[in-house]
């Protein structure tokens, strides 16, 4: 039993690609609502972030719902007129559906950005090109370094100069330009040294191979296969029209047969899988705590004492 985010990075990446791919191209409201539910459940169960994240995404969805009928006047069910323009039920539904889609995709992206660390990303790119991965790794190190240098350099300049409230905007601009140029100089020097250090450790030898700490097991393979099957079902039934939805002129469902229900079930399995993993994880820990295995740290300390 491992948490969803602790699977091999390839699993996480495939899952995200499958979910975003189906969720963004299948407009079916049931698909969008399931996707949003899955994202919200996972977000809260795994404590991925502050509640302000889904709240602000909710505001975004609401705004899209309300704005769309003001812009688009298609649809046959007129609810009211604003400035002589019709506000239709269909445009409202389309807006709500798009809002839910945007919110769920953004929320999934947020959750994944928490899971996919730089190390995991590089593990995947490294398989494609070890060199690009290494360049990526040094770039990742370099950007914050640049920021720190700039902060240090400008704070030294600030403490040494005449008071800033007196400095003219032009003078201040000149000072930031000086700080920036000094930062660039220092960063370049550091990167030259870093390149020397890379050369000294055999960078550029033709046999470079990427090393990472992740182990790909049969369970990872099984999860990937299941994800691929679910996404495949959804994609196939979307391709043959079983998940078609028409919003204009009248909201109507194209499918409705067993294929539709099977593919909706497949999508539900896909989007609820992360939340289910987290639930199982929590349940396992509850059970362990009930059995009195809560504080192994204490056991360890007693043994070491």
């Amino acid at each position, binding site marked *: 039993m491992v948490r969803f985010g602790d699977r091999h990075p390839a699993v996480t990446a495939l899952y995200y690609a499958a979910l975003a791919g189906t969720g963004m191209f299948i407009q079916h409201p049931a698909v969008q609502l399931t996707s949003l539910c899955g994202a919200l459940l996972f977000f809260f169960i795994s404590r991925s972030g502050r509640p302000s994240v889904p709240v602000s995404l909710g505001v975004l969805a609401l705004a899209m719902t309300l704005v769309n009928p003001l812009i688009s006047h298609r649809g046959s069910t007129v609810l009211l007129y604003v400035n002589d323009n019709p506000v239709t039920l269909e445009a409202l539904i389309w807006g709500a559906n798009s809002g839910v889609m945007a919110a769920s995709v953004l929320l999934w992206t947020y959750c994944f950005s928490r899971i996919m660390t730089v190390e995991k990303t590089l593990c995947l790119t490294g398989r494609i090109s070890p060199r690009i991965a290494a360049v990526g790794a040094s770039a990742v*190190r370099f950007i914050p370094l640049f920021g720190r*240098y700039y902060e240090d350099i400008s*704070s030294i300049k600030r403490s*040494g100069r005449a008071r800033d409230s*007196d400095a003219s905007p032009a003078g201040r601009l000149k000072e930031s330009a000086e700080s920036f140029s000094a930062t660039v*100089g220092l960063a370049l*020097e550091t990167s030259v*040294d870093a390149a020397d250090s890379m050369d000294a450790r055999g960078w550029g030898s033709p*046999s470079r191979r990427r*090393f990472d700490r992740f182990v790909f097991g049969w369970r990872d393979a099984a999860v990937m296969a299941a994800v691929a099957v679910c996404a495949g079902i959804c994609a196939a039934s979307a391709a043959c029209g079983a998940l078609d939805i028409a919003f204009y002129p009248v909201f109507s469902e194209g499918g409705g047969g067993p294929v539709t229900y099977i593919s909706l079930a497949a999508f539900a399995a896909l989007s609820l899988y992360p939340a289910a993993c987290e639930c199982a994880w929590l349940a396992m820990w509850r059970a362990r705590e009930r059995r009195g295995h809560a504080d192994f740290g204490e056991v360890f300390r007693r043994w070491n004492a």
Partner: protein
Amino acid sequence: MERIERPYGGLSVRGLSYTPRGSSGPVIDGLSFDIDPGEFVLLAGPSGSGKTTLLRLLKPEPPVPGKRSGSVMLGGRDVLSLSAAEQAALIGLVSRDPESQIVTDTVPAELAFGPENLGYSKELAALRVAETASWFGLDGLLDRKTSTLSGGKKQLLSLAAAAVTRPSLLLLDEPTSGLDPVSADGFLSAVRRLNRELGITVVIAEHRLGSLMGDASRLLVLDRGRLIYDGCPEDGIGTVLSVPALAPEAPAASRLAAAVRKGRSGSTEKYPVTVAEGRAFLSGLRPAGPVTEDNGGAAKSVSRDSGAPALEMKDVRFRYGRDLPDVLNGFSLTLRIGESAALLGGNGSGKTTVLLTAAGILEPYSGSCRVFGRDPSAAAGRRKRDGADRIGILPQNVRLLFSGFSVREELAAAGVAGDDCPDRLRPLLDLCSYDLSAGESRLLGLAVVLARGPGLLLLDEPTCGLDGGARAELRERTAALAGAGVAVLTVTHDCEFAAESADRIVMMFDGRAAGSGTPGGFFSSADFYTTDIRRITAPFADGCVTLADAARAFVLPDGKGVSR
């Protein structure tokens, strides 16, 4: 994975010369020496004597531009004939700057970088990373970003990353020059273990000869590109002491003996190295008389209580985050115009935080900090500062003050007139500021900071990585500044520098000033935090803190003093 042969054998250098591109004379001039496998070689020499160049010639990748001649053989093979991969596997290199040697963002990735380049299989790479991390005690840091590590840990990581491919030769170029003494000791003990337990041949260029004298099996002394000594470390002290810029790096006991002998007794005599040997040497002498304040002593305690305060910190409290502990916990300090104070204390005692608060870079959450009567922090202050009440800060990483131009341009940008340039920088005016040695760049940094005519000068670990000559020059410059009415606050681990340059010593502990006094008084009463000279002289004389004190206080039996 490439098969890399690991021949057993030492290093053999024959007639090695090197002339850099664009230079008229050779920087390395006809060096020949042999190093047996498993030796611990200490490479000494003043700044600019060619230590770094020699190390870079021993490992030709990355190449240095210029003309080289002579041969370097490692285990019977010419190093120039080794492929880049073979060199990476057989010769490890750790240089000075902890920041720029690290090339990836996490600790395991950094350790794996060498094995990846050499095409190790995943299993072998994992094993090497695991055993290296465990051996160096880095296993607790596996999830850390490299950018969050301290300088000492970064350097230790660089050492581990160089050792992960099992080199037979390890080259270290002033690896501790950017570290505080505690981290430096930790680093050097790891190097020692690599040499003793794994039998790796070590060649280390260092300014802290005293701390490595006991470990090294060989001492090489370079001066202007020539080898002036090659042999056992103890017998080389005479040579070290004979080079003025190098002499201050010799162990305190040796310098003490040299100062007392004043060159009289023959140079063939052995020099004491350790504190115990130094005491044994002194026990045969007798003090010339009690050391009091008026016959020298250590105290230059001019009473400056009357001067106007330059820096006033009262009950300052500071922490780096709401839920973090206080770093400054009611710190108070008054520094008057023309006074020079040194702030000592262990790692994490808040010394640098005091400096940054005084510079206005950090803002205390409680208490007051006034520089010439005004709050230095950026948020406060409306009046324009006119020269004398400005603050000058010399950061530990002096490169932060430069823009990567030539020395001449850096000085011009700071507004230093051509004539005011320090003499030591004159021959370097056309070099890029980043290419200067640690000592030279410290002096350039000081010149740049002083160009604004600050009334308060803040120095952060100014002696880190300096050779003896640069250290003496820095001491003279700061003394001259205090004489000219500049208040100087120095944060340092270097007790000897503090004793020689400051009027007042303040010891920090737990975010507060735990004690203070004149150098003579403070260091005489301290046992752990004191100068090496004081440690040696403690049983024999009081108030003997600096080399000059000791030279006055003790005389040879055949001298004017009466022998025991």
